[in-house]
């Protein structure tokens, strides 16, 4: 536009142009509002690193968002969600939770019912893996890990941990108190809705000199050094520890394969719900699902994720294996978690 043309600009034209400019700036504001930081409350360490590597950096950040992680264990995250649930704006946009953790949070009004029309990628998730409030990310099952040079006959049941020849070499993990009591219950007359029979059997294991390790990492070290020969653990962890050179093999207990599933929910008071839905969609992308299978040993939740055959053989469950899947009773856990932890601390460890 020349100077001459500008000088000829009528008031009507000027008003029209100003209006158009204003409208354009509003479009810009809408775009800016849709982007911005997306705070993801998640487990730290390898898990957070994989989220950054496979989801945030390649898939979400390029869309004008900035994923920020708030790393912690699940329990403190649940406490934070509960503490903030009555505030108009919370500190997280996305919360990584387990199936039972998300049930707790939904029952207590801390997380939203999801709008699946905004998560088109979720269409490829089998219906039994998703809930109204949690989009799954990956899953694995509970198994028995054992050192084949010490435990020469592969275990077939959780009850094998009670064999006298393994006395003093069986390890349990303090933070896995629920799954340990649950496994004992499954082997000795209890069920996923009744852990009580497991308690007496665990006291027998205690008498046999069970070793209690504080974390999964401490257990890996104990298996590595031969201090511990056999333990209950997640299949995905077993795969990772095998990759790291820990001398273990994986055995599936005849009691069944209890599924451990993690995923993402949106807190009711999330500040950036657009960003949250963007993240939920991105984590279901085939590249992200394949990355998590490779780095964390979990099974993808989306159908048709291309994996190298060797990896697929180790982490993807066959239909026959899937038929033996068992799901925890979330209602039972919500009502009994505290008393089971009490028992664990006061009686089992006491």
């Amino acid at each position, binding site marked *: 536009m020349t100077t001459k043309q500008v000088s000829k600009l009528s008031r009507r034209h000027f008003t029209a142009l100003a209006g158009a400019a204003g409208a354009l700036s509003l479009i810009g504001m809408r775009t800016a509002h849709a982007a911005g930081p997306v705070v993801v409350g998640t487990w730290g360490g390898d898990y957070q690193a994989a989220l950054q590597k496979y989801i945030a950096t390649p898939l979400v950040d390029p869309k004008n968002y900035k994923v920020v992680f708030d790393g912690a264990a699940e329990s*403190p995250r649940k406490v934070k969600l509960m503490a903030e649930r009555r505030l108009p704006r919370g500190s997280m946009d996305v919360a990584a939770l387990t199936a039972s953790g998300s049930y707790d949070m939904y029952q207590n009004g801390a997380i939203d019912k999801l709008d699946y029309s905004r998560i088109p990628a979720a269409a490829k998730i089998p219906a039994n893996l998703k809930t109204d409030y949690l989009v799954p990310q990956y899953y694995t099952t509970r198994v028995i890990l054992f050192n084949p040079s010490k435990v020469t006959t592969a275990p077939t049941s959780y009850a094998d941990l009670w064999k006298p020849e393994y006395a003093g070499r069986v390890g349990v993990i303090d933070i896995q108190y629920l799954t340990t009591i649950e496994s004992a219950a499954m082997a000795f007359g209890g069920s996923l809705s009744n852990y009580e029979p497991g308690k007496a059997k665990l006291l027998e294991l205690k008498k046999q000199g069970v070793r*209690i390790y504080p974390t999964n990492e401490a257990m890996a070290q104990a298996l590595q*050094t031969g*201090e511990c020969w056999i333990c209950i653990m997640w299949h995905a962890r077993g795969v990772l520890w095998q990759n790291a050179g820990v001398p273990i093999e994986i055995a599936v207990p005849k009691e069944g394969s209890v599924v451990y599933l993690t995923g993402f929910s949106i807190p009711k008071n999330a500040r950036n719900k657009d960003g949250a839905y963007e993240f939920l969609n991105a984590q279901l992308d085939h590249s992200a699902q394949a990355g998590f299978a490779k780095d964390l040993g979990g099974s993808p939740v989306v159908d048709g994720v291309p994996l190298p055959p060797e990896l697929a053989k180790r982490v993807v469950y066959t239909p026959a294996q899937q038929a033996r899947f068992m799901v925890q009773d979330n209602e039972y856990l919500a*009502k009994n978690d*505290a008393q089971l*932890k009490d028992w664990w601390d*006061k009686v089992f460890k006491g």
Partner: protein
Amino acid sequence: MPASLVTITFLVLPLLLLFRYSLSSFVPGQFMVDALTLANYGQAFVDPYYRNVLAKTIVMAALVTVLCILLGLPIAQFLARTQSRFKSLLLLCIIVPLFVGNAVRAAGWMVAFGQQGLVNQLGLATGVLNAPVDIMYTPVAVLIGLVSVNLPFVVLTIQSVLEGIDRSAEEAALSLGAKSFETWRLVTLPQAMPGVLAAAVLSFILAMNAYATPMLLGGPGFRMMAPVLADEILVKNNWPLGATLALLLIAVTTILTLIINRVLVRVRRRLGS
């Protein structure tokens, strides 16, 4: 006035909120439910588990304090009296560990205390041990970890008081025929008692409220109050009982600190006379 405002905002109000929480009740699956009940206090006092944890915490804090004073006094005395040109360097050696967080230091001890760790390897190599011993997740590991955390505070507190003591009194005692230990016991120590008192109180409070060290080195086998009350809130989601235990810990620490203060003031008077 601004100081009072800060104190009320950041200390008194949170404590009041904690007190209110402690009167609420816990319903599994519903977390904290509004109520006005003393049931949590009843549980904290009656349940042998919490009494036992509190007793273990008090004994551990007392042991750590005694050990820190016994180890810290001679180090502080040496640092205060040395004429070495390396005095600043020696002081730096005491200060540097404070730059490293408790959790990181505890992680270092974890490496040393493992079955294949430095301590066991040294023990086996020198023939002191026939087989590796369990040090991790025992009270011994927590004791060593807490002493290592508190010792620099104790040394620096006592050393700063010793630096301020006029040496002419010690010289007078020595010139009148007192032996070195007598001079230290009858002249130096009574004057250093305010520093010892402050160091003991500091060490005791730090040990009573320690979280990272007992959590990492005590593990599942040895629990102290701070990790237990954190578990109530963070793992069991039982905020009312967690708040009650927190208030109980604050109250017990305050009362015991006052008692230690009185006892050490009496000791000081006795030494002075």
